């Protein structure tokens, strides 16, 4: 029993022990079994959570390796927000002469079933931007919410995004969504969207 107590202490604070001490304890088959049971216990609770219905509560931004960033015309982020938005965006770097298709359309609620967050939002209020430039999205927002747009960084116009916009949501919420993207910086000040 003393050994199990020692194992419990070591698993909580392995940094307090030398490599030799850790290896010695784990070379004992019985202690190893107990350790594996602890790993399984954590996995078991995690499985329970996975099986429970859930929704992303906070925006999640990807961290990206340098190698990934060097790849032209590739996706660099995905964002989910409060079950109403699913977005990815790609940054088109200089030298890419292709002109990607731009499309703005009303979302088909059955499209990508199982991949989008389940939402209670009225599907008719959702608009989907696929590979659309930021300036196109901001123009839509400008027309819809009756605000103006100022670009303090001209390059930001051409950041390409995949995103869903719940037209029933307040503009500030959309601004926050857009700011979830690593390369997008927009602010709402006095009925004006400022893109930097």
């Amino acid at each position, binding site marked *: 029993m003393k050994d199990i107590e020692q194992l*419990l202490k070591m698993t909580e604070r392995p940094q307090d022990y030398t490599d030799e001490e850790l290896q010695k304890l784990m070379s004992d088959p019985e202690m190893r079994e107990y350790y594996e049971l*602890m790993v399984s*216990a954590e996995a078991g609770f995690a499985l329970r959570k996975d099986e429970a219905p859930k929704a992303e509560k906070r925006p999640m931004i990807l961290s990206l390796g340098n190698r990934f960033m060097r*790849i032209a015309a590739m*996706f660099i982020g995905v964002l989910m927000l409060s079950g109403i938005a699913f977005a990815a965006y790609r940054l088109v770097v200089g030298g890419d002469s292709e002109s990607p298709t731009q499309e703005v359309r009303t979302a088909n609620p059955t499209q990508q079933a199982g991949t989008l967050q389940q939402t209670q939002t009225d599907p008719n209020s959702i608009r989907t931007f696929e590979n659309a430039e930021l300036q196109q999205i901001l123009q839509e927002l400008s027309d819809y919410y009756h605000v103006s747009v100022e670009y303090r960084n001209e390059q930001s116009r051409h950041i390409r995004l995949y995103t869903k916009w719940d037209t029933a949501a307040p503009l500030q919420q959309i601004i926050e969504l857009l700011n979830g993207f690593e390369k997008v910086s927009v602010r709402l000040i006095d009925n004006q969207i400022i893109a930097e």
Partner: protein
Amino acid sequence: MSDVKTDIEQLYIDCYQRMLNMARWMLKNDDEASDTVSDVFARLAEGSLVLPEERPEGYLMVTVRNRCLDRIRILTIRERMERRLSLSDNDPTSSESERERIAEMIDYAERTFSKQTWRVFQLRFDEELLYREIAERLGISEVSVYKHLTEALRLLKEKFNPTRR
């Protein structure tokens, strides 16, 4: 070329979150999980990873899983213990039967442990509290926390000996 891009983009939208969840699950490190999944898409974009025409999603998941296992294999015992990863090189949740075994283990614990042992067990392995925090939460000594966890592990070992897998 643009069709290929479009295909990759669609896969990205469809699969990214699932791939990331799996990588997080396996590596127990968000940054490494992100890097692993991003690296797979980077290789896809470069053309060094070619997807089969049939079930590319499944192929992507397997690729991420294998890359996670590659990362885990080079971790030291200390690093694995810090993340509470298995010391075996197999993914402990890769098979359905193993997932069932793990789920059954928790059900068994809930059914058979004393109320207090279950609570301590849950606070440790579900909520991941420190022993001191568990003691404070339940108003018991740290020694009692060890005793409850020792009892819990002993009961689980009797019923679910991991070496019998």
